[in-house]
């Protein structure tokens, strides 16, 4: 690798010591660039995070030294690529604390994982009168696949309401459970509001009635340790690109007993043991669900991202982000006419807000002019916007490499927006 590139700087600090943010920022090449003549202030991490050099290098190294197709060749490169790819699966298994590597399926991302479960698990098992339960907080990726499967089967989609603080209403959930509930699909962390859903309570209640549970973990895995055995969920979905990994790679964890019973979703190479025109024998788990050449480089990059995050320490990351959330919440509340949407007591480092008289889209443009990147719009959660009676919000979302000084720049840029449009 290029020796001039900055090395990974992760001193072996004790778990209770705070992260050395100034040092680890140099791990992220993009953080040194400028936007409109100002240092980039990247506060759109809930949409997609940035990549450390270690992840970029792991992907380059794979392409530079040992790219070949996996599971196919007897030659050296194919063996090395297979080792790296399957090693990545082991890394994910450990990261999620899955019982077996057969429960770890590489897909394009959270969206594809939810769709796989909708089509391969739910669709053959649902009929008219059956019910799928989701919450009002969900990202469109955890709404639309279920609507599609309901259209296909005649099943009904039921929605657990949320409270004014943006929490999933547990009492209402209990009221919505019925003998016809066939699946509960919940966000672990809300992308639009940052609410950390206390999923354990929901899972315990659902599982005690024999209802399987899918968690959309896209916003959770970047911010907190996830243990699928402790959670006792049946399916867990997440994406690489929100946790410092490549785009186009994600994971479906599924309880092996359920995955075994499910038919393949897509057919093709790699998911078969034997094919003739009369009959095809499907491959075993997890390959049954991985038709075609997988995103090998993506899986390798994701494993490197997991190693990077684990070296920093997920608990320390959570602590650093909590401090950013606390600082941002306090500072934003100083601005007259600013209202934070989503005030649950337990939140990931996401602040969604609206400002009287200034549309979020204008805020986004003015902030960008100052080098501050945030997301504006409905955040792929239009029902959440509708619930709070706003067409859109501005959303700042933080990663462990952000600083309180960057939050202060967000505040300055918001003051400018008020001057320009107020």
């Amino acid at each position: 690798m290029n020796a001039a590139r900055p090395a990974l700087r992760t001193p072996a600090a004790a778990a209770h010591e705070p992260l050395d943010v100034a040092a680890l920022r140099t791990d992220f090449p993009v953080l040194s660039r400028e936007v409109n003549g100002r240092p980039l202030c990247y506060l759109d991490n809930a949409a997609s995070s940035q990549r450390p050099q270690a992840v970029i290098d792991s992907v380059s190294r794979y392409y530079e030294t040992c790219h070949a197709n996996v599971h196919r060749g007897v030659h050296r490169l194919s063996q090395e690529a297979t080792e790296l790819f399957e090693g990545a699966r082991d890394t994910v298994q450990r990261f999620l604390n899955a019982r077996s590597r057969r429960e770890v399926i590489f897909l394009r991302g959270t969206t594809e994982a939810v769709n796989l479960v909708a089509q391969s698990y739910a669709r053959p098992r649902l009929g008219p009168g059956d019910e799928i339960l989701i919450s009002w907080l969900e990202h469109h990726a955890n709404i639309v696949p279920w609507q599609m499967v309901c259209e296909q089967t005649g099943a009904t989609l039921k929605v657990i309401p949320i409270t004014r603080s943006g929490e999933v209403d547990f009492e209402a959930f209990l009221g919505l459970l019925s003998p016809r509930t066939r699946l509960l699909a919940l966000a672990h962390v809300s992308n639009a509001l940052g609410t950390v859903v206390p999923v354990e309570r929901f899972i315990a209640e659902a599982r005690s009635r024999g209802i399987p549970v899918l968690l959309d973990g896209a916003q959770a895995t970047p911010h907190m340790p996830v243990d699928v055995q402790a959670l006792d969920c049946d399916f867990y979905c997440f994406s690489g690109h929100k946790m410092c990994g490549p785009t186009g790679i994600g994971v479906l964890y599924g309880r092996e007993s359920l995955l075994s019973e499910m038919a393949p979703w897509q057919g093709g190479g790699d998911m078969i043991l034997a094919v003739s025109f009369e009959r095809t024998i499907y491959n075993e788990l997890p390959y049954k669900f991985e038709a075609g050449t997988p995103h090998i480089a993506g899986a390798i990059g994701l494993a490197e991202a997991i190693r990077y995050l684990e070296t920093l320490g997920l608990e320390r990351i959570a602590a650093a982000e909590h401090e950013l959330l606390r600082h941002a919440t306090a500072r934003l509340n100083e601005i007259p006419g600013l209202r934070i949407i989503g005030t649950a007591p337990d939140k990931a480092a996401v602040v969604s807000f609206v400002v009287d008289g200034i549309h979020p889209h204008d805020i986004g443009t003015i902030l960008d002019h100052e080098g501050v990147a945030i997301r504006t719009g409905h955040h792929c959660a239009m029902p959440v916007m509708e619930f709070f009676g706003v067409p859109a919000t501005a959303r700042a979302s933080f990663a462990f490499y952000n600083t309180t000084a960057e939050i202060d720049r967000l505040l300055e840029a918001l003051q400018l927006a008020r001057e320009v449009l107020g």
Partner: protein
Amino acid sequence: MDLKDLYRDVIVDHNRNPRNFRPMPDADRQAEGFNPLCGDRLTLFVRLDGDRIADVSFQGSGCAISVASASLLTESIKGRSIEEADRLFGTMHELLTSDEAGVDTAGLGKLAALSGVREFPARVKCASLCWHTLEAALHRQDAAVSTE
């Protein structure tokens, strides 16, 4: 690229005090416009007198660029013929999307204030939404317009 190129005084004024911002119970034509990217949503009303636009108004919510653009649109096409409005649509489209600053803004009046939008590609759809909605109202009755 200066913020004031985008948020010129005319635009800030029309955002704060949009003109012809009202429903029109006796409208002959109306169309809905929606920009899913940012949630801009507007309804445009037109009352015709022959082929002349006797009255035009709008309602809805959106960013400063989309509200000001719709407000300026209503001011500029009231009293004009459908053919003139179509020609203006073509000129505005060019003004908002052309790479060069060569568009003749002489006949545009206050609408020329939107020329700065060109420098902010993410915002072009905000400014053009009302014009596409007008075209739908004039030529495709009851059509819903989406920028996506």
